[in-house]
């Protein structure tokens, strides 16, 4: 049934007497284009002039006949292809249906005895038929496109919606508007929600999402959980980056004339989907022994939830559910992260490794682990700040007591964030632990080497990460550095002061004369002490190159001149070179060389000479 471009030829203004030019009923099918417009005009008039008391329903009857045949024509067409063949035709169909809706509303206002009964009835039947047709086609379009897309070679970048053609969407839009106008909003929304939910479910399945029961999750091994977590995060990202926004767009496109309906439908869909996704993290927060390195997975989950929560999905009831459920899980995951991180403190405190000190005073594995852990953790600094801030708020703590070894001058400390304070606490514990471990060394020298090694390592690691450095504060680093210097001095004194005494110029003379006995004694002592140091301390380890050279340099700078001057001054007092050679084991150059062997971590057999 087509329409001509200019079908008007009679009663153009529509304001004539009664407005109905009754054509011969037999000629209904002839000149359909004129007739169509005329009927519409009559109907419009009828609607307008409705309250004038006298209503002639004949034009309605004519209209209804026309409607009936139009509907029949569309019904005959194949499903999923009912609309879209002729845009104008479709547009006119929807217009007609809309008019029908209006007529019915008007007619229903009439008292039941106005003789409109049969008219109403007929109109109502036609109306319902039209709605059936529309709904069925709506469903087919929504559903069919889903299936068709599997293996669809059409490039997705062309289309705004990968699964629907712009045509389909336009048609669905029309149908939706018509149905809603007709008072069939419920049917329309039920169909839409149901089919979209089905589509979203299929989407999730494609991403290998499967429901995991809380019960089952609790029993899974960490290895399996890790895989699921990875998958979950991937899916979450897909949701927040793509799925939700394209779904919203679809809602807005199909229900473009009804933004509040679009909003509500999207909100419900998003919430339904989210509830399903939140089950997994809820299962993860149930108590389990999570070792410290699991922290990062939880922070990843937290961040995914944060992104989800930040999506503005709306204001209605289901949106509130969405926000509250997501926030709750997010909070719990945050708490889990806090407790995992806090385990670090426990593991540091309880680490005493069977009271056996690390060989050679090297950097302790705990130091390495802790510092690397903190460094990695600070890559999640913002998230951790947030998590600890939240934790603090929940525990209603005021600003934590500032750790004692900070001066009041460091303002940053007093305003330190909860996470920064936590960090400082960890550092303090580590320090205390290192201090305790250093006491296991019987040799004081080794003790200081150990303290220097570990202290140095810590300092280096801090400097490598601006985040940690900033959180701990500048004065913290300065304090550390000066402490290292102190240990250095202590080491020097402890190890080398005795040696220096053997090559002191004082006390060599007796009664103004150089005593050969004393000299011999001195050299013997020097050699013994030096050999001992060499033997022992070459096996010690200073892994930090700079520290190592600093140590050697400071030793050399003291020892070599002292030895050189001693030897230079007193070697002539020996009887001959043979005797001298017996007591003067080392030349100054030798000393220099040998000092270079210190702290190499060599085994004794590797010590030269």
């Amino acid at each position, binding site marked *: 049934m087509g329409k001509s471009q200019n079908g008007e030829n009679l009663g153009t203004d529509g304001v004539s007497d009664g407005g109905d030019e009754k054509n011969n009923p037999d000629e209904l099918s002839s000149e359909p284009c004129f007739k169509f417009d005329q009927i519409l005009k009559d109907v419009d008039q009828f609607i307008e002039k409705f309250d004038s008391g006298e209503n002639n329903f004949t034009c309605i009857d004519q209209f209804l006949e026309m409607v009936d045949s139009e509907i029949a024509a569309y*019904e*005959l067409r*194949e*499903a*999923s292809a009912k609309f879209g063949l002729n845009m104008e035709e479709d547009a006119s169909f929807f217009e007609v249906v809309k008019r029908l809706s209006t007529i019915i509303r008007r007619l*229903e*206002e009439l008292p*039941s005895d106005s003789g409109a*009964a049969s008219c*109403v*009835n007929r*109109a*109502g*039947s*036609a109306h*319902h*038929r039209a*709605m*059936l047709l529309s*709904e*069925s086609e709506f*469903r*087919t379009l929504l*559903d*069919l496109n*889903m299936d068709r897309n599997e293996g669809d070679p059409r490039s997705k970048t062309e289309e705004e919606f990968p699964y629907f053609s712009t045509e389909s969407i336009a048609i669905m839009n029309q149908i939706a508007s018509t149905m809603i106008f007709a*008072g069939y909003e*419920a*049917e329309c929304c*039920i*169909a839409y*929600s*149901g*089919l979209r*939910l*089905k589509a979203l*479910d299929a989407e999730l399945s494609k991403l290998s999402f*499967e*429901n*995991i*029961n*809380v*019960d*089952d999750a*609790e029993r899974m091994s960490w290895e399996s959980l890790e895989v699921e977590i990875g998958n979950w995060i991937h899916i979450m990202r897909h949701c927040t980056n793509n799925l939700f926004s394209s779904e919203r767009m679809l809602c807005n496109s199909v229900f473009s004339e009804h933004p509040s309906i679009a909003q509500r439908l999207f909100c419900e869909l998003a919430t*339904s989907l989210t*509830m*399903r996704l939140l*089950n997994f993290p*809820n*299962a993860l927060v*149930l*108590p389990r022994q999570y070792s410290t390195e699991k922290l990062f997975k939880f922070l990843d989950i937290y961040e995914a939830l944060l992104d989800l929560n930040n999506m503005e999905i709306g204001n209605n*009831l289901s949106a509130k559910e969405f926000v509250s*459920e997501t926030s*709750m899980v997010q909070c*719990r995951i945050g*708490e*889990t992260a806090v*407790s995992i991180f806090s385990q670090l403190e426990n593991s540091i405190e309880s680490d005493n490794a069977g009271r056996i000190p690390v060989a050679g005073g090297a950097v302790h594995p705990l130091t390495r682990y802790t510092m690397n852990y903190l460094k990695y953790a600070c890559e999640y600094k913002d998230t951790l700040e947030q998590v600890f801030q939240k934790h603090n708020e929940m525990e209603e703590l005021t600003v934590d007591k500032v750790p004692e070894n900070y001066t009041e001058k460091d303002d940053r400390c007093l305003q330190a964030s909860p996470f920064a304070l936590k960090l400082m606490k960890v550092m303090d514990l580590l320090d205390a632990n290192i201090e305790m471990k250093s006491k296991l060394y019987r040799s004081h020298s080794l003790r200081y080497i150990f303290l220097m090694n570990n202290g140095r390592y810590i300092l280096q690691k801090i400097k490598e990460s601006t985040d940690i450095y900033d959180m701990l504060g500048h004065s913290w680093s300065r304090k550390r550095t000066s402490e290292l210097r102190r240990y250095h001095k202590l080491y020097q004194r402890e190890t080398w002061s005795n040696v220096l005494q053997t090559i002191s110029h004082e006390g060599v003379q007796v009664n103004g004369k150089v005593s050969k006995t004393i000299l011999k004694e001195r050299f013997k002592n020097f050699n013994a002490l030096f050999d001992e140091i060499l033997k022992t301390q070459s096996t010690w380890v200073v892994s930090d190159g700079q520290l190592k050279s600093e140590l050697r340099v400071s030793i050399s700078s003291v020892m070599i001149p002292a030895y050189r001057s001693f030897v230079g001054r007193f070697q002539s007092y020996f009887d001959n070179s043979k005797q001298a050679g017996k007591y003067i084991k080392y030349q100054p150059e030798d000393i220099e060389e040998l000092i270079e062997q210190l702290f190499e971590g060599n085994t004794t057999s590797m010590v030269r000479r």
Partner: protein
Amino acid sequence: MPSTDYQGSSSPLTNLGRSFLPLRRDQVHSMESPIGGSPSNEAELESFQRQVADRFHDLASVPSDELLSLPWVRKLIDAFLCCQEEFRVILFNNRTPVKKPPMDRLIADYNERAVKALDVCNAIRDGIEQIRQWQKLIEIVLCALGGDNNSYQRSLGEGQFRRARKALVDLAIAMLDEKDSGQALAHRNRSFGRHNNSSSHSKDHHHRSLGHFRSLSWSVSRSWSAARQLQAIGNNLAVPRGNEVLATNGLAMPVYTMGSVLLFVMWALVAAIPCQDRGLQVHFNFPRQFPWAAPIISLHERILEESKKRDRKNACGLLREIYQMEKCSRLLGELADSVQFPLNEEKEKEVKQRVNELKQVSDAMKEDLEPLEKQVREVFHRIVRNRTEGLDSL
């Protein structure tokens, strides 16, 4: 005979043996000496038993038309939440003994049961969502037949009847479909989606893919079974032995009580609300010495009886409103089918009457479904919270 009348006993010491050791009479003799718990501890434990009993007496004393109604179910969950809260307080007040064996094992057992209940909560929420979908269909019927608030006194035309009938048929199918497992339904939905070509199939297709995609396995895995889960919750739920009670200073009792309450409440929820693989054959064995045992057993019996009634045998859920919804919609459907146009006054009156009945059910559901869902969520969250808290303090 060890009495159960210690609600209001005046001398805690002499009743000590009875309040904490609901043993057989011969066993009472060998345990006459006081347990040795602190007086406040005893009072606390006794009060707990009493509170639980009171609540369930309340729930059990309703007439049969109130049993398993939405308000009743809500009351049931409320009762559960209260019991749980009190239980939590008891554990908190007895933090130290709770860490010691055998109490730690008993608590761990309870916690496992509670975790299993989490999945039940999720499944129940899916069921509530299903009911909501049915509710939407009913609203269409009401809208079509003038049962909604903005209906004029118009006469009902054929079109409206057709609309109502379509919705009623959809509703009937939807309610029937839930008896299949969610899996079968899902498969059927998918397969029907593919075969849609000619319009002759479209009606079928239309019915099958009726937006019931929020199926009963939306939140739980496809193989999950409510029946199995209930059995797991009730697994090894045994009355504490005398030595256990002694060793735990009486604390074993509230643990057992809470476990029993959990089992019953979950069971009742599964009985009432549609969920995946809804089986009610769980072994209940609560010794009558406990003051709460009688009401719970009575409720259990009554609910079981209801489930066996002829017209409720195949119900997808025993919720009273589901029954009413099904009945009203069926009657209305039959009426609508039998109607000839134009309607005579008598028929029209009949229709309006049925519509009103349906409206009443619908209104009742509208009011209570949302809060019910919230409550179920609350149960979920409380259980999680208690578990995560537990770790901190234990």
